[in-house]
């Protein structure tokens, strides 16, 4: 739910001193609203996450460019629906290993918040059917398999000792097609097994 409005400079004015002013509109309401931090700015993006934080609403945004005494018509977005169009970030993945097992603890991604001090809202609270697609790669056997889980704790047991396993996890929400971002691949080795070393 981090919603960034982006745009390109007017044709032929790349590099010129153009300033931009952003306004946004809540579908079904009456007035265009402005955001002070995005008035007469030089950059070509504006963070509208706070203004679009009610994800059940739909929004429009408009940008006007000013160059010297010239002022452009407003360029307007389509109707933006955060609940459908936000990308679901990857969960946090914590791995701990043993001789023959790896424990995976997943923490659901958090909704964007303006103030770090604010209490966090988990994306799980917004999408109650949020699931995780866990992929496990056994580097020694060169085999991959996966698992679909809803809970946040997973133990892979009966693994081979002293073996590198790589894990990456993608969150996904069944329903309308939504963009999802898999987590970074994390690799850990299971510990050596003294018993098999003695044999």
């Amino acid at each position, binding site marked *: 739910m981090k919603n960034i409005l982006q745009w390109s400079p007017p044709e032929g004015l790349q590099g010129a001193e153009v300033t931009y002013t952003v306004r946004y509109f809540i579908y079904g309401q009456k007035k265009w609203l402005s955001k002070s931090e995005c008035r007469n700015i030089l950059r070509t993006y504006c963070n509208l996450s706070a203004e679009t934080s009610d994800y059940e609403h739909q929004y429009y945004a408009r940008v006007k460019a000013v160059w010297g005494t010239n002022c452009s018509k407003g360029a307007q977005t389509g109707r933006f629906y955060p609940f459908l169009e936000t990308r679901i970030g990857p969960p946090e993945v914590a791995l701990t290993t043993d001789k023959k097992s790896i424990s995976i603890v997943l923490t659901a991604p958090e909704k964007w918040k303006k103030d770090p001090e604010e209490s966090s809202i988990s994306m799980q609270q917004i999408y109650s059917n949020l699931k995780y697609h866990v992929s496990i790669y056994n580097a020694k056997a060169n085999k991959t*398999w*996966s698992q679909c889980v809803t809970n946040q704790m997973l133990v*892979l047991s009966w693994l081979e000792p002293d073996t590198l396993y790589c894990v990456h996890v993608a969150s996904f929400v069944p329903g309308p097609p939504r963009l999802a971002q898999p987590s970074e691949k994390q690799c850990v080795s299971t510990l050596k097994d003294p018993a098999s070393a003695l044999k």
Partner: protein
Amino acid sequence: DGVAVLPAPQNLSVQSTNMKHLLTWSPVVVPGEIIDYSVEYQGEYESLYMSHIWIPSSWCSPTENPECDITDDITATVLYNLRVRATLGSQTSAWSTLKHPFNRNSTILTPPGLEVSNDGFHLVIKLEDLGPQFEFLVAYWRREPGAKEHIKMVRNGGVPVLLETAEPGAAYCVKAQTFVKAIGRHSAFSQAECVKLQGEALSL
């Protein structure tokens, strides 16, 4: 002015297996000429609310083959009317309409292909990729008298999925059936496939 001189295609029928729907008809033959065909469809909505409206098929308006994959056109579990006509230059045949409207819930569902393997003590299954409409119900059990059968739902085919962390040295058997949400039906179970895991019991 060339209207309805050309004979209309005959013997329209739909063969549907695993939610792939193929409309076929007998070719119209004019020696030395290539005949084009156009296929159109209307769902229950169109036939109820605006029966004059027909929609050109996604892939076969026109086509030269006497068949048409209408899978992408049949996107609801309701009755669909289908019609075909032939065209040769400026000559156009009459429309020929499928005698009985088609509903995708009549599709034939075949047991899915599956590959059972193991990665160490992990029983892994890879099911045939039949497309997004298909889910799979997998049954597996230890190959020993009185063994309990376990059931697992697998959402998509084509990727290896962990079925069970198995006991060392044990043999497991697996069978699967498809389930299609769109029509609320499932296939017969596949043949069971068994795999034996090496190794004797290891201390944890």
